[in-house]
């Protein structure tokens, strides 16, 4: 702000000017030329025939129009849609105020006037430093209302907004204050409904003052638009639902939208939707998603873009719930803390259907994407210098934290303890390293993935570095992964993977490397006193590129990837392809390409996508074998191929390599659930959910509990999912399935119907509805529903709960009916072939093995069914409840082999439950007998 002080309001810094006749370009009040004014002081004095007083007294030009109530109007300062605004003086107190006079308003009845006054008075009762106080509401002699309020010398944002173009922090600070004011007002029951730059005034110190609350609706503005559309609010800043819906449905989200639009404009110089006509603008805002902030100003922070986008969501439920939430995120951004608005999508089962409005199914891919895109948190660098000054950190000291056993998911298992001791011993003996006095034992509830925790551990152990590691068995050997973390910054300096036979060998080998790094790292005095190590740079550089063009393609690809719909996914793939074209060593881009192609394969199951995914992933791994993204891409493609067990190893590697692996934990949870280890799945999910404030994985936890047979916990989890994941049917469907397992068909149908009402056209819901009818043996109804499902995705069904392939169910029902036996047989054959095909590329896929078994049973081939069932169980199938309910197994239900298999499964599940058994759980899972 170059000219502050020179002019009262930024509005007065002009680019266009009207030159005076005298040639000068500066003007003061009333449009007067400053030079002429001054020079008039040089003119000779002109003779006056009368005194000034006398002259004025003689002429009858009274001020009556310029007195309203107790106020003397001084001058006009603006005209708006509502009326005129004056600077005025309160006669008795001599206080200067702004006076707003409503020139035209809906005065069809006395009632209206009374209501207006009441509303104005309600607004007048608001008392907040950033809300423009209303002093008085009155009615002029001609019956028009007016109100007086604080005079804001800095003008409004309408004129002042251009100043913020180069000052994003100022803009954010301002909007955060406004948001807090709106929060306060909303809590008092008042929505603004017409937030716009013109309503945000600035006082003498530049503080924002929000005015004109909720009064827009009283004003019949003269434009045709408002008359015809009865839209209140200003196009460009008005939330779409204000246009479409009745006023009764408005929520604080409308103000959030407006705040987002204003922030968008301050940061980018233009409002999100532009148009020549208000109608055009309004329609655009209702139809299209808002543009991304960085598409206009690329250099702005990604977090700002996210915040704006969340405010500008068309669906009010997707925005920040309140202005206060928005204010908090803005304040977090100002403090360099991570914001909450990040698009986080939960892990749900992979799907193979496509919808009319092609949004990718919320799937485990989401976790793959998000983790891949690397939404890593920024370190709060402002605290660094404080820490450095406070804590005397010994240069070469290292604190060892307990190793984590990834097979047991425990830090207290034998394996974990053994490795921890081995490292402690090795480091004690190492030259140039001083082991922190007491090896820090992490309590179970401390989350070492958070930067603050690393710092705390380091500080309390007075150590400059913290060593964190994990161990697991892999291909007959021990695999160890360790991270060396700098206490002061909380950043990972180095990461190593090491395989070996004995704990002490591994520890010794890695200790040498650790010593080297510790010796090498130098202290530099940067702005924040950051300690930079050579290993630091090395770590950042893994798989990255020096080519800025390639880098921006990759970044662009990540942006598209995050948006999570088909069109943008294609754009993401394009961008990643370009990135690797430019730099053929860009491992990160290859890895992203692999993940993106793998996700693409979901809705387009042609072979090409997966082949490209495999190829890209292989290249990424070759170039950068320590790159977590590469392993994540590999894990994703393996899953896509159906090779779940193989994908486990890749996911575990990702977990080992990542500094803050909570998303990897979620992916591992889901994968373990898929391979029939819900007990381990639970532990991984619990790990992952420690990191999150909201129960993101509630439905996954529910699934795991269901598999283990703890229905009470499962129900709790699903109910949590209903609340916290309202955009997905997972909670209701989980409850539905639970009811099914409890033998309560009516209850199952009820939950399913609720889901149907809430989530129209959702194929998951359709599948559940079909399953209920099928298991309850209402075959005509079941057939109808399965046909519907098959119309959407002919090859579907095997991956859903219960693993009932659509064609298999239809075929079974038809054969049973006798009438269409031939067609039924054909369908069963087709179903069989579909499973066989899947098993070719993934022979240990338990779902397809089970599906095949059920299909064989449907075909009357008991032997084949039994064999497949055994294989399925060996591969990890544990859903014995579905086995018991599935009519397709009727032909072999009484066979010894079947009963045996059932019994084995029940014991297996019971075993998995044992370590977690508590007093409230029933000792055995409830047996269900299918009722016709």
């Amino acid at each position, binding site marked *: *702000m170059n000219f502050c*002080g020179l002019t009262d309001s930024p509005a007065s810094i002009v680019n266009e000017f009207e030159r005076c006749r005298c040639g000068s370009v*500066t003007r003061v009040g*009333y449009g007067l030329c*400053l030079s002429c004014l001054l020079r008039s002081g040089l003119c000779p004095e002109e003779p006056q025939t009368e005194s000034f007083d006398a002259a004025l007294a003689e002429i009858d*030009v009274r001020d009556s129009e310029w007195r309203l109530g107790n106020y003397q109007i*001084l*001058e006009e300062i603006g005209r708006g849609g509502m009326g005129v605004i004056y600077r005025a003086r309160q006669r008795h107190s001599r206080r200067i105020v702004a006076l707003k006079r409503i020139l035209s308003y809906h005065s069809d009845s006395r009632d209206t006037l009374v209501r207006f006054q009441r509303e104005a008075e309600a607004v007048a009762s608001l008392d907040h430093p950033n809300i423009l106080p209303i002093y008085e509401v009155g009615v002029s002699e001609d019956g028009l209302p007016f109100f007086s309020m604080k005079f804001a010398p800095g003008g409004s944002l309408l004129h002042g907004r251009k100043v913020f173009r180069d000052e994003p922090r100022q803009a954010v600070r301002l909007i955060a204050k406004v948001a807090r004011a709106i929060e306060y007002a909303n809590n008092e029951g008042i929505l603004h409904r017409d937030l716009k730059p013109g309503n945000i005034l600035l006082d003498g110190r530049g503080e924002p003052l929000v005015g004109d609350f909720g009064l827009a609706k009283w004003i019949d503005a003269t434009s045709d638009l408002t008359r015809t559309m009865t839209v209140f609010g200003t196009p460009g800043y008005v939330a779409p639902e204000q246009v479409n819906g009745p006023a009764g449905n408005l929520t604080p989200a409308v103000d959030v939208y407006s705040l987002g639009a204003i922030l968008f404009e301050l940061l980018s110089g233009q409002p999100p939707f532009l148009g020549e006509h208000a109608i055009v603008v309004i329609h655009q805002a209702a139809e299209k998603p808002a543009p991304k902030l960085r598409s206009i100003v690329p250099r702005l922070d990604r977090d700002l873009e996210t915040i704006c986008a969340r405010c500008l969501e068309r669906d009010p439920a997707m925005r920040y719930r309140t202005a206060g939430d928005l204010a908090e995120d803005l304040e977090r951004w100002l403090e360099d803390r991570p914001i909450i608005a990040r698009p986080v999508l939960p892990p749900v089962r992979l799907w193979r259907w496509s919808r009319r409005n092609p949004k990718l199914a919320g799937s485990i891919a989401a976790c793959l994407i998000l983790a891949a895109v690397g939404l890593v948190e920024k370190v709060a660098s402002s605290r660094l210098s404080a820490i450095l000054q406070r804590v005397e950190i010994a240069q070469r000291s290292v604190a060892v934290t307990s190793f984590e056993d990834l097979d047991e998911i425990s830090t207290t298992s034998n394996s974990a303890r053994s490795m921890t001791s081995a490292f402690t011993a090795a480091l004690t003996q190492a030259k140039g390293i001083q082991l922190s006095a007491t090896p820090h034992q992490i309590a179970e509830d401390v989350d070492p993935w958070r930067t603050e925790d690393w710092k705390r551990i380091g500080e309390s152990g007075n150590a400059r570095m913290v060593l964190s590691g994990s161990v697991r068995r892999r291909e007959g050997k021990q695999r160890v992964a360790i991270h060396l973390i700098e206490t002061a910054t909380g950043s990972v300096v180095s990461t190593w993977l090491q395989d070996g036979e004995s704990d002490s060998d591994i520890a010794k080998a890695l200790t040498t490397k650790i010593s080297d790094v510790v010796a090498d790292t130098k202290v530099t005095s940067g702005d924040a006193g950051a300690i930079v190590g050579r290993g630091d740079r090395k770590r950042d550089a893994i798989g990255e590129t020096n080519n800025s063009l390639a880098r921006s393609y990759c970044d662009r690809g990540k942006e598209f990837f995050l948006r999570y719909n088909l069109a943008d996914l294609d754009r993401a793939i394009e961008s990643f392809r370009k990135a690797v074209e430019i730099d053929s060593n860009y491992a990160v881009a290859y890895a992203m390409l692999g993940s993106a192609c793998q996700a693409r394969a979901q809705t387009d199951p042609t072979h090409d996508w997966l082949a490209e995914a495999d190829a890209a992933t292989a290249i990424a791994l070759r170039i950068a074998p320590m790159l977590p993204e590469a392993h994540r891409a590999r894990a994703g493609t393996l899953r896509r191929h159906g090779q779940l067990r193989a994908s486990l190893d890749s996911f575990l590697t990702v977990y080992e390599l990542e500094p803050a692996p909570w998303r990897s934990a979620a992916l591992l949870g889901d994968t373990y659930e898929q391979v029939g280890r819900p007990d381990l799945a639970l532990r991984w999910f619990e790990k992952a959910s420690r990191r999150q404030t909201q129960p993101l994985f509630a439905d996954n936890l529910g699934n795991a509990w269901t598999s283990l047979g703890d229905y009470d916990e499962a129900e709790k989890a699903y109910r949590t999912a209903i609340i916290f994941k309202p955009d997905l049917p997972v909670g209701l469907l989980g409850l539905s399935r639970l009811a099914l397992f409890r033998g309560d068909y009516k209850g199952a149908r009820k939950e399913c119907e609720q889901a149907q009402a809430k989530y129209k056209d959702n194929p998951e819901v359709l599948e559940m509805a079909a399953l209920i009818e099928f298991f309850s043996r209402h075959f005509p109804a079941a057939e109808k529903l399965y046909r519907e499902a098959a119309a959407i995705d002919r090859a579907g069904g095997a991956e859903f709960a219960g693993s009932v392939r659509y064609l298999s169910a239809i075929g079974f029902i038809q054969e049973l009916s006798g009438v269409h036996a031939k067609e039924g047989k054909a369908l069963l054959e087709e179903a069989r072939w579909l499973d066989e095909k899947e098993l070719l590329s993934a022979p240990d896929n338990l779902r397809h093995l089970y599906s095949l078994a059920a299909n064989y049973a449907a075909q009357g081939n008991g032997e084949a069914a039994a064999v497949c069932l055994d294989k399925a169980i060996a591969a990890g199938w544990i859903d014995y409840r579905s086995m018991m309910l599935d009519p397709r197994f009727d032909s072999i239900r009484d066979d010894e082999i079947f009963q045996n298999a059932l019994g084995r499964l029940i014991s297996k599940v019971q075993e998995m439950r044992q370590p977690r058994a508590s007093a409230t759980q029933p000792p055995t899972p409830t047996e269900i007998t299918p009722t016709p």
Partner: protein
Amino acid sequence: MEGEARKALSDLCRIYWRPIFAFICRRGYSVPDAQDLTQDFFVMLLEGNLLSLADPGRGRFRSLLLKALNNFLIDKHDQAKTKKRGGGMQFVSWNDWMAEAPSQLSVPAREFENWPAERIFDLRWAATVAEEALRRLAEECESRGRRRMFAVLSKYLTVDRLDVSYANLSASLGVPETAVKRLLHQLRGRFRTLLREEVSQTVKSPSEIEGEIRYLCAALATSADRVE
């Protein structure tokens, strides 16, 4: 400092804070810092002996103030940055002063982009003088119940007589054209008087008024101005 002199000085501060603030901002300080410094400067003025209005040989108030301000900023710069600000009484009431005497100075950005702080100071000083005179004229009209008249007629204070549409004004004010002519004439005369009075507050003797006005006129000259 004696009571009367102090009052006079504090009135001057109330009127002439803008050039000081503008100067400090132009020197690169942030708005909050500039506000605090302006406040500190005034406090220093009022408490100190820096300025002695009674001394004839020392030059005009405007240039004295600028010198004092320069020195003040140099001193401030040398002082420890960690010195806590605020905590004292708020002398400058930004909101009130700006509400009472708002400024509508409007300048084309291009012209003044490269001006040094001293020239910005002078420009702002010139505008303040003129606006203060206008304000007093408005108040005089207001106290005589003629504020609206002032609002209507003030735009024509410097306009050539030939360009004034007396007919329109007559209709707008509801008085005959001859009355409009007389009023305008009166207003112009009164403004001139007030302007000279204002200038006289900051110079030592009436003989310096013209010189000061000329100086201020020259201060406005920009490269964009055509010389008439």
